[in-house]
């Protein structure tokens, strides 16, 4: 199943259109970027979405329409039983150290990555062709091949990470700073920027680009700073442990999501009624419901309930604000919810990232993260209706209440320009599409 997100794209184009206007793209320049988050390894699977495709690339990728499209693979063929796949590699693709990508160099990396998912998989390299086969069918192999976990990368003494992406690593200070330079021989064309310096764990707002967490969304930004907003790629949800179903239903009816969206996200987020956002699933509107405090109060009065502890990440002031609002809404329904930064409450406020533009993959990942994987293991995720039913079953289990779908927000200073291009994952700000004024 591949869902189209034309609606989000249209909106995104409108919001980002102004960013692309003005100057024509040109090469050169150094971009500085401050990220509030940090990471200590350059493994593509561990990198934030923003950086995951800059250095190492996958064989296939998912575009903004939810379709698989070639990346390092030029084409692929699947035999009828799904046990054998033939992948033809793109020609003239070079690693950052100048070595050409071929089946022999790609096979070991790919096999090691696929073994984590398919234990009996085998890869036979042959020139520019990789033959992947298994004793059992591999229906979701393309999803796996689009995951950053299967990025074709190498490591050497001179560089911590060598890939085929548009940027190569020139300096790496784990947890602090990453310096990238444009890869001149990138098969997709040299990026506009000459280089990019990314500072990690920084709360400054002086860089050309910096991320804007929702907790500081309402702070005053430098003059003329623009916000780039990804597709909603993060789910904020309430997850219950040992909370009676009637209490969860009452909570779901009591929470006024629109107020949270309007005020706490300054309309950047979206009310979430399903686990997957509308742009990804296409059916989220079917779960939509309006707050009904009266009904919530009726439900809550069914039985006397002890106060519910609601835990949230202690360092996340946005989560705290949402938790306090939930407590207030719950109070209106006659429920006592006590927000606490300590873990272990009967309710948890969690932020779950959507890793790709593949709805089925994201649902599986979400259910795994929510501890509800057993409910989707037997679902045929290739059909929209079964995916809907699986998600509905998840919601009906009264174990999780979706609250918000949140986008990634980046502030761009006036010297940074952006060219809109469908490079795949709409959750990511593609640095290769940015250029800066001299």
């Amino acid at each position: 199943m591949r869902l189209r997100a034309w609606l989000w794209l249209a909106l995104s184009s409108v919001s980002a259109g102004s960013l692309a206007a003005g100057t024509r793209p040109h090469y050169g320049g150094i971009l500085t970027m401050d990220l509030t988050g940090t990471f200590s390894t350059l493994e593509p699977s561990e990198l934030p979405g923003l950086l995951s495709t800059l250095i190492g690339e996958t064989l296939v990728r998912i575009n903004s329409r939810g379709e698989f499209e070639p990346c390092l693979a030029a084409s692929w063929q699947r035999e009828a039983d799904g046990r054998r796949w033939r992948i033809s590699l793109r020609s003239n693709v070079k690693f950052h150290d100048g070595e050409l990508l071929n089946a022999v160099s790609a096979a070991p990396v790919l096999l090691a990555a696929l073994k984590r998912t398919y234990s009996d998989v085998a890869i036979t390299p042959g020139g520019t062709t990789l033959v992947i086969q298994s004793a059992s069918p591999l229906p979701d192999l393309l999803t796996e091949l689009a995951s950053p976990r299967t990025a074709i990368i190498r490591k050497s003494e001179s560089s911590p990470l060598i890939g085929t992406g548009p940027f190569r690593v020139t300096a790496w200070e784990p947890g602090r700073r990453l310096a990238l330079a444009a890869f001149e021989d990138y098969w997709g064309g040299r990026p506009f920027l000459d280089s990019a310096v990314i500072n990690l764990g920084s709360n400054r707002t002086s860089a050309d680009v910096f991320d804007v967490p929702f907790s500081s969304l309402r702070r005053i930004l430098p003059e003329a700073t623009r916000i780039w907003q990804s597709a909603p790629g993060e789910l904020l949800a309430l997850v219950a442990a040992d909370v009676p179903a009637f209490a969860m239903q009452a909570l779901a009816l009591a929470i006024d999501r629109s107020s949270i969206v309007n005020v706490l996200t300054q309309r950047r987020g979206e009310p979430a009624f399903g686990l997957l956002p509308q742009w990804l699933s296409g059916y989220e509107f079917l779960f939509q419901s309006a707050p009904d405090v009266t009904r919530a109060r009726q439900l809550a009065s069914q039985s006397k309930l002890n106060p519910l502890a609601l835990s949230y990440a202690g360092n996340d002031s946005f989560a705290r604000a949402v938790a306090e609002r939930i407590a207030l809404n719950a109070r209106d329904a006659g429920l006592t919810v006590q927000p606490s930064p300590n873990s272990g409450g009967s309710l948890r406020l969690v932020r779950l990232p959507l890793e790709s533009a593949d709805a089925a993959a994201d649902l599986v990942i979400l259910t795994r993260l929510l501890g509800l994987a057993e409910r989707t293991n037997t679902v045929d995720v290739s059909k929209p209706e079964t995916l809907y039913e699986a998600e509905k079953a998840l919601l009906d289990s009264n174990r999780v209440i979706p609250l918000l779908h949140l986008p990634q927000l980046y502030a761009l200073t006036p010297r940074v320009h952006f060219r809109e291009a469908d490079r795949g994952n709409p959750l990511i700000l593609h640095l290769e599409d940015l250029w800066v004024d001299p």
Partner: protein
Amino acid sequence: MSFRIKVFLSITVTVLIAVWVVAAVVSALVTNSFERREAQRTAALVAEFQREFDRRGQEVARRIDAIANSDTVQRMAVNLAGPQPDASRYVDEAPALAREQSLNFLELVGPDGRIISSAEWPARFGYQESWLLEPVDWKAQGVFLKREDLADGATLGLVTVRGVKTGERTLYVAGGSQLDKEFFDSLPVAEGMRVQLYRNFEPRPAPDTLGSALAATLIQQVQQQPRELTRTSPAASISAIPLIGRDKQLLAILLVESSRAELATLKRTIQATAWGVGAVGVLLGLILSFWTASRITRPLRALAGSVRQVAAGDWNTRAVVDSRDEIGQLARDFNHMTEQLSEQRDRMIQAERVAAWRELARRLAHELKNPLFPLQITVENLQRSRQASPEQFDEVFRESTTTLLAELDNLKTIIGRFSDFAKMPAPHLESVNLNDTVREVLKLFEAQIRAPGHAPIDVRLETEQNLASIAADSDQIRRALRNLVLNALDAMPKGGTLTIRTQNVNGTAGTRVAVEVSDTGEGLTPEECERLFTPYYTTKQHGTGLGLAIVQSVVSDHKGTISVHSQPGHGTTFRIELNR
């Protein structure tokens, strides 16, 4: 109850009552003074509370004015009055402004009454505060007490409201300070006093609330009818002052506790002192009672001793007179009385002696006159017979000598009786069983009673089976009983019942033995009973009047007692009691 104990009790009770009265009066005065002082202190504290309330209220008003006039709020008001107002961008303003002005509460509320930003509860954005939309001149309203709902409960605040008007739209700035611990800490609370605020929306007073049960009662009463109340317990005195909100609702109760520990200590001291004084009083009473009693009772005891001596027959005893008080006078009177009695006794003895002699003479004359008269006749017959024939003279002589001898025997008998009475010998004591003696006496009269022509006498002998033996002279006892039986028989000339009864008697003087002799004769008058034992007194025509005198003499010589019980027409009973 002895005089000493009476004196002791009198002194003790007097001292205790005096001490109690003094202690009660002092305690009442101290309590009154203490309560007056506490009332003044409470009033001063409440006045200070009111002053601090007003002062802080003015401060709150000044700060809210500053916020309402700030650029931020003015700009906000203008923006919100625009065509497409976006209140969400101001959600963080109230906390910042409240921090700036050091206010605990601040809410920025839009023209529709919805909270735009809240400092005390940031999550409440969008909630309705409809009370702000009431047509009120908020500036004139001033500062008032208001319940403030917070995420973790509710509290009380000094709150004021300002409206920032832009065109037709008004942005409301409502905020203030919490009525917190710091507020109460700033009050000049005197030692022994505590101030606490009971907030009326709390379910019940907190465990550490003043006075627990007393405070709870007080709170309940003020809740029912808001008014100032004061209640007192042994531990504390609590005043409750209702604090009313803008809408006339009882929002809180100011509880001012004055510890009564100091008063209690004072009272305990007074009580302890009273006990001490009381104990000393009791001791003093004891000493005084002994001293006083000894002072008073010594002459009384001496006097009593003299009385006892007089009673024992020592008529020459005199009480010692060593004071001029009432007791001394009593002793003098006693001595005078004994002197008078002694003289009277002497005179009586003399008179009785004369009377006895007269009686004796009369008796003797009477007794002797009867035999003398035949003697005289016989002698005169004998003289006249000398002129008769010798044969007649011999006959008369023989008869006359016979008569003379008989009458002389009679005279000897009479004289013997008097002699016997005069010569009553001292009893020779031996162990005697009265039952046996009684039977022996009855045996003596058996023939007489059963003699033909004698009136029918029914004899009843009621003897105690285990009658104790007594130490007595059996002959004298027998003689005494014989006289009593004889008297009883004489009392029943027409017959009747003679009852002789013996019994053991347990009395204060130990076990005694009693014997009763009863008849069913005519009985005696009380006057006769009184004189019955007087020698030579008799109710019989031919008695000597010595029978019962002899009986009394025998009983007296045996240290016993004799009594008579009689009523006319109901017979007479003589009862003799003898010691073992």
